[in-house]
């Protein structure tokens, strides 16, 4: 008798949509927090004082929060941060120019061999990047490019396969009537490109810019191969090199790691719909 009443109460609770929804969110939140533990621990540890890291190494919240770790990290990092910022900027600006010009031509201009060329562009995406890296090293050494910043932006900016594909897809979706009206008014091809297509293509440009920024900022292999001088190194390499050397204390290392991740997170959170759009567009081809 008692059991049936209890069972009834439980069923009633489970049938209540507000209750099940609250439980669902609670479960997701626990899952997400558990998943994010490494990052939460990283951020928490970056604020720990020396004794905290020893007495409570696995705690997320520091007992005695301090900013000294950031001071230590920022004492070492600025040069590398600047290099990473400069390279991200060059990569984004030049890649956008190359990809939008080519994407526009493949979508809208008519010239012999256009579709064949586009196939060649897509085909080159099938070759893994590592196949180029070794001979690129030899080529760049002959050009005197090794131990400069050129190998870290020129090759990426001038070979935007994904960017061109995305820009072309986007331009194909813009109604042709707009350019035809402009053409009747006497606008040349470049005017149509720069005054009509580029402004309309802002969402696609933003997507490509974001992916390029993340690619450039997170690149580890490129700087490891092409750059020897420490003063030219970027943030990921600095982290890799300093894992044991300059940051003997965990808290300072975590402060440095936090500093390198935060700009990407900020950009990503501000513009996450463009990321999703890019991923969806590239994932649709299957």
């Amino acid at each position, binding site marked *: 008798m008692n059991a049936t009443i209890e069972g009834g109460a439980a069923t009633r609770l489970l049938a209540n949509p507000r209750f099940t929804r609250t439980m669902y969110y609670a479960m997701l939140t626990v899952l997400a927090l558990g*998943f*994010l*533990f*490494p*990052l939460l621990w*990283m951020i928490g540890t970056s604020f720990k004082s020396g004794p905290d890291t020893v007495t409570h*190494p*696995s705690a997320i919240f520091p007992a005695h929060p301090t900013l000294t770790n950031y001071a230590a990290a920022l004492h070492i990092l600025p040069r590398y941060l600047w290099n990473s910022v400069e390279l991200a900027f060059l990569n984004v600006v030049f890649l956008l*120019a*190359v990809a939008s*010009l*080519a994407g*526009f031509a493949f979508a809208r*201009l*008519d010239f*012999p061999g*256009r579709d064949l*060329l586009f196939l060649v*562009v897509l085909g*080159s995406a099938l070759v*893994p*990047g*590592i*196949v*180029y*890296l*070794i*001979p*690129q*090293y*030899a*080529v760049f050494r002959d050009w005197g490019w090794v131990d400069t910043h050129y190998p870290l932006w020129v090759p990426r900016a*001038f*070979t935007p396969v994904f960017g061109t594909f995305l820009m072309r897809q986007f331009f194909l979706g813009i109604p042709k009537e707009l350019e035809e009206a402009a053409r009747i008014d006497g606008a040349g*091809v*470049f005017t149509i*490109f720069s005054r009509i297509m580029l402004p309309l293509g802002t969402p696609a440009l933003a997507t490509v810019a974001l992916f390029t920024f*993340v690619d450039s900022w997170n690149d*580890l*292999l490129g700087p*490891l*191969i092409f750059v020897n001088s420490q003063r030219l190194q970027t943030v*990921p390499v600095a*982290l*890799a090199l300093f*894992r044991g050397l300059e940051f003997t204390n965990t808290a300072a*290392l*975590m402060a440095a*790691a936090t500093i*390198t991740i935060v700009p990407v*997170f900020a950009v*990503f*959170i501000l513009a996450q719909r463009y*990321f999703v759009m890019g*991923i*969806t567009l590239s*994932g*649709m*081809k*299957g």
Partner: protein
Amino acid sequence: MTTVETARPPVDRRLGVSERKTRRPRRSLVGYLFVAPLMIGLGVFHLYPMLLTIYASFTKWDGLTPKHWVGLDNYTKLITKDALFHQVVRNTFLFMLGAIPLTVVLSLVLAALISSPRRSMVVYRLAFFVPYVANSAAVAVVWFRLYSGRDGVLNTVLGAVGIHGPDWLVTSPWALVAVIIASVWQSLGYPMIVLIAGIQAISESVNEAAAIDGAGRFRRFRYITLPLLTPSLFFVTISQFVVSFQVFGIVYVMTHGGPGHDTDMYLTRLFNVAFGSGQLGYASAMSWLLFLIIGALTVVQWRLQRAWVFYE
């Protein structure tokens, strides 16, 4: 009236012809100019280096002195003699065997949990996606500190739930497991977003019809969502094959391939052969072999898709 009608078309046609004749070459020249930066870039930075590696893979070459032709020697040595290379290939396949199913299954589960278009889900999507955009050096540095030491952070956390953790990074099978966990953790977000997009593209009406017929949430997922999602799952699996074969950053920073060479992967080894010991010819052969293996795997996947991918 008939004269007007017959007289008109020739004029029009002539106009059309003359216009095409003067404008076409100029307009196609503009087209070539627009694609020129990209095509020159691809030629200089992709095609030329690629051809150079083909040639270099048949030579002994340290990058400084001229290349010395050795025929197929690099390839035969790789395939028949180089025990370390064999170990590295084995490691890479073990890594893939662990990482790919884990990534695909976990990203599918997460996608199913948070695919609802409700706005509040955005926060959860962000949470699971965020490690994907973190640089792998930082990810590796953080996981390195979590793993290291028998009484390290991770083992303390595990100890709280009664699990006695191993000394992750220095004992043999566990170092590879550690690399797999950190790498799956980092790369989960991308396939998850692709699968969420796939789930959201499945039309509501199919699901509603099944719900009216009395199918529960789980049955609807199993018999409606899952089959319709197989094209996205296929894309995700293929891209994970390509990506995980080229795992680099986490291994390079977190374990340096150790203990011994137990977590040394294809790309970390390739990097060391090329830039550590300067055997560029041998490394070129390695990179072409990598290309061939990935190509072969992709073809096999493509063939197998008929067995499980459902196209409407």
